[in-house]
C-alpha cells in the first residue's frame, strides 16, 4: 500500500523579534492540515524538529501536539519526536504500512534561534504539517541516505546553560565551505536515488530541498545542472528556515502549479553531520498531491 501526502500546511517564517511561539504554530499547522474533515483516525503523531520552544528537553514535543488535536483519553494514539523531516517521513510511512494507524501527522517546527557568537544568521520560527494516509496510485516510493562525516565540522550548534545573566543561549558555528559541501553531497544522493529508480530522469522531477543552509536550493540546481525553477525554494528572510523548510517550499510550489505538473517529487534534506536524506514521491502528472491536499505558506495562515 502506498502512503501518500493528503495535506500540507506551512506557516512562517517569523523572525525572532516577532515572538511567535513555535509550539502554537506547530499546532496551528497540524490543525489546518486536518481541516475540514477533522480526521479522527490519526493515531500517530511525529514531531520533527530540532529547536524546541523553551528548549524543552522532556517530554517529547509530539504529546503536546497530540493533546491539542486528538483530545480525550484512551485514543490509542502514539506520539514521539524524530530529529529530521525525512527521517520522520520514512519511519511514519513504515508504521502506516504496518497498520499502526490509518493516518499520521508529521509536524516540523523550530523556534527562532539567534546564531550567537558564531556568526551564523540563526533560524526563524516556522512550522509545517504533513497529513499522511493510504494512497492508491501515488505516494512515497523509496528513500536514500548517506552520511558524510568528513564534513562533520561544517556546522555545530550548542545550547549553553551558562550564558550571560544565566540565560541559556545557542551558539551556531558554520564553516565557510559548509554550504558548498551540503550542495555537493545532496546532489550525489539525488543522483543515486534517481539512478536507483530506473525510471525518471532529473527532467521529470521537481526537487524540494532543505532551505538551510542559506542558498542551498540555488547551489543545488547548479550542481544538478537543472533550471532553477526545478528546485523549490522560499524567499530568504531574517533567519534561515530549518526543519520545516522543504514543506514551506513544497506549499509554495503547489501554489504556483509546479507540483501539479510534475510526475515525481524528490524531497531532500541536508542536516549537519553531514547527513543527506532523500525521498522519491511518485504522483500522476496533473494531480496536486492528492485531491484533498491544501497548502498555505503565508505568515497569517491565509491561503
Amino acid at each position: 500500500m502506498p502512503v501518500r501526502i493528503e495535506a500540507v500546511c506551512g506557516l512562517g517564517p517569523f523572525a525572532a523579534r516577532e515572538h511567535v511561539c513555535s509550539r502554537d504554530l506547530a499546532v496551528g499547522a497540524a490543525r489546518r492540515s486536518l481541516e475540514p474533515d477533522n480526521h479522527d483516525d490519526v493515531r500517530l503523531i511525529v514531531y520533527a524538529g530540532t529547536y524546541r520552544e523553551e528548549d524543552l528537553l522532556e517530554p517529547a514535543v509530539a504529546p503536546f501536539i497530540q493533546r491539542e488535536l486528538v483530545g480525550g483519553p484512551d485514543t490509542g494514539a502514539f506520539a514521539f519526536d524524530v530529529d529530521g523531516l525525512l527521517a520522520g517521513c520514512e519511519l511514519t510511512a513504515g508504521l502506516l504500512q504496518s497498520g499502526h494507524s490509518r493516518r499520521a501527522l508529521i509536524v516540523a517546527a523550530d523556534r527562532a534561534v539567534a546564531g550567537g557568537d558564531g556568526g551564523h544568521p540563526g533560524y526563524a520560527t516556522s512550522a509545517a504539517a504533513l497529513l499522511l494516509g493510504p494512497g492508491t496510485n501515488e505516494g512515497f516510493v523509496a528513500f536514500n541516505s548517506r552520511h558524510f562525516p568528513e564534513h562533520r565540522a561544517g556546522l555545530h550548534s550548542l545550547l549553553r546553560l551558562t550564558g550571560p545573566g544565566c540565560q541559556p543561549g545557542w551558539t551556531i558555528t558554520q564553516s565557510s565551505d559548509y554550504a558548498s559541501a551540503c550542495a555537493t553531497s545532496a546532489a550525489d544522493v539525488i543522483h543515486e536515488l534517481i539512478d536507483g529508480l530506473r525510471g525518471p530522469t532529473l527532467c521529470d522531477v521537481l526537487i524540494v530541498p532543505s532551505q538551510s543552509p542559506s542558498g542551498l536550493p540555488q547551489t543545488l540546481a547548479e550542481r544538478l545542472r537543472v533550471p532553477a525553477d526545478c528546485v523549490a525554494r522560499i524567499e530568504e528572510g531574517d533567519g534561515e528556515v530549518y526543519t520545516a523548510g522543504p514543506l514551506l517550499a513544497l506549499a509554495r510550489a503547489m501554489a504556483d502549479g509546479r507540483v501539479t505538473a510534475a510526475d515525481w517529487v524528490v524531497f531532500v534534506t541536508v542536516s549537519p553531520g553531514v547527513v543527506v536524506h532523500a525521498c522519491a514521491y511518485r504522483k500522476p502528472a496533473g494531480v496536486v498531491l492528492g485531491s484533498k491536499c491544501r497548502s498555505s505558506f503565508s505568515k497569517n495562515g491565509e491561503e
Partner: protein
Amino acid sequence: MADESANDVEARSMLRWVWSPGDRAQQQARIESVGVCVPVRRTRSRTVGGADGCGGPVDVEQLSGIGERRECVDGEDSRSLAIAAATDCLEQSAVAAEDLEVLMFCGISKTDGSCRLYRGAPTLAAIVAAEIGARAALPIDVGNACAGMLTGIYVLDDLIRRGVVRSGMVVSGEHISPLAREAAAHVTGPTHPEAATLTLGDAGAAVILQRADGQRDGIVGRRFVTLAEHAGLCTARPRVDAPGVRMLTQARSIHYHAIRATPFIVRSALCEAGIAFEDIDHVVMHQTAQIAIKRCASWCAEVLGSDAPSWVVNVDRFGNTASTAQILALHGCLREGSIRPGQRVLLIAQASGIVVGALVVIIGELGAGRAGAH
C-alpha cells in the same frame, strides 16, 4: 517497475523501498547484542531538604529504594557514554559497525563536553555513528523521554520486519546526575516538584537488532500509546534563574496514570504475541523507585490475573537512568545469567508524555559475536 519482483527491485540498488511491487514476507527482528557503559563514580543517596512545608526532609533511599547511583566525572557526558555503550555492544556482536544500516540515538540529555553544553546539531546519532565507524548507517535522533530506547527499538523493529533493513543499533547516553545535584539545593520535602530529580543517575546503553532469519527468538509483541492529556506532568527545560536544567515532576500523578494504564497495554502486546502474562519469565520495567515497581507488579497481577515470576529491580544500584533503564537492567540480568536464551521477557516503558509501551521479547543466543559470550 510494475514488471519487477520485490527482490529484483531490492537487488538493483541500496534504496530503502516503501512502495515496492509485490508483498514482502514479514521478517522478525531479534536482539543480537546488548552493551552498556556506567560511570565508575558511585554516589550514595542522602537526605536533603526539610526547611519548609513540603513534608519534611527527603530520605531518598527510604523514599525510592535507591541506595546509590552512578555519576559522570569530568570528561564523561552523554556522547561518551553512548559511544562507550555502542562500542561494548559491537564488541559482543557478530554485526560489524560498517554493516549497521540504521543508528538511532534515543537519549534525553545530549551533553557534549560539559554538563552545561547541550548539542543541537549534528545529531548525537551522527556523532556516535561517525565515532564507531558506522558509515553506512542512517543516523537518526529519536526522542520520547524515558521511553526513548524502547521507542527506538519499536521503530527499528518495524524497519526490519518490513524488510527495509537487516540490522541497526539503538543507543543512548544519559548524563542527568547534574540535575540531581542541582535539585538537592532546592528540594525542601518529598512533595517538592524537584524531589523526583534526586533519583537520577548516569548510564549509557546500546542494543543491536537484526533480522531473525528463521530463528525463533525475537520481538513477538509490541504496543505503545501516549496518554497526551497528561503531557505536562513531568517537564525538563533549562533554568532561567541559574545555570543548569530543572525537571519538575508531579510524581504521584504520573506514577498513578502510567501504572494504571500499564496492564492494558501489556495485554495488547501479549495478545499479539499469542501468549499469556503467566508465560512471561521476566518483566523489565522503567526503573524509578522500588515502590513503583511493586505497585505496578501488583496492579498487573490483579488485572491480568496472574503473577509474572520475576520483576527485575536494579534501581537500588543505579537510580533512574531515564531512557537507558530497561536495557541497563536487561544487560545486568543477561550477564549474571538470570535471564537465559529461550526465556520470554516483557519490556515496559513508562515515561513522561505520558508514554506507556510494552515489548514482548524472546531472548536468543546473544554473544555469538567476535568477543565471545555475554
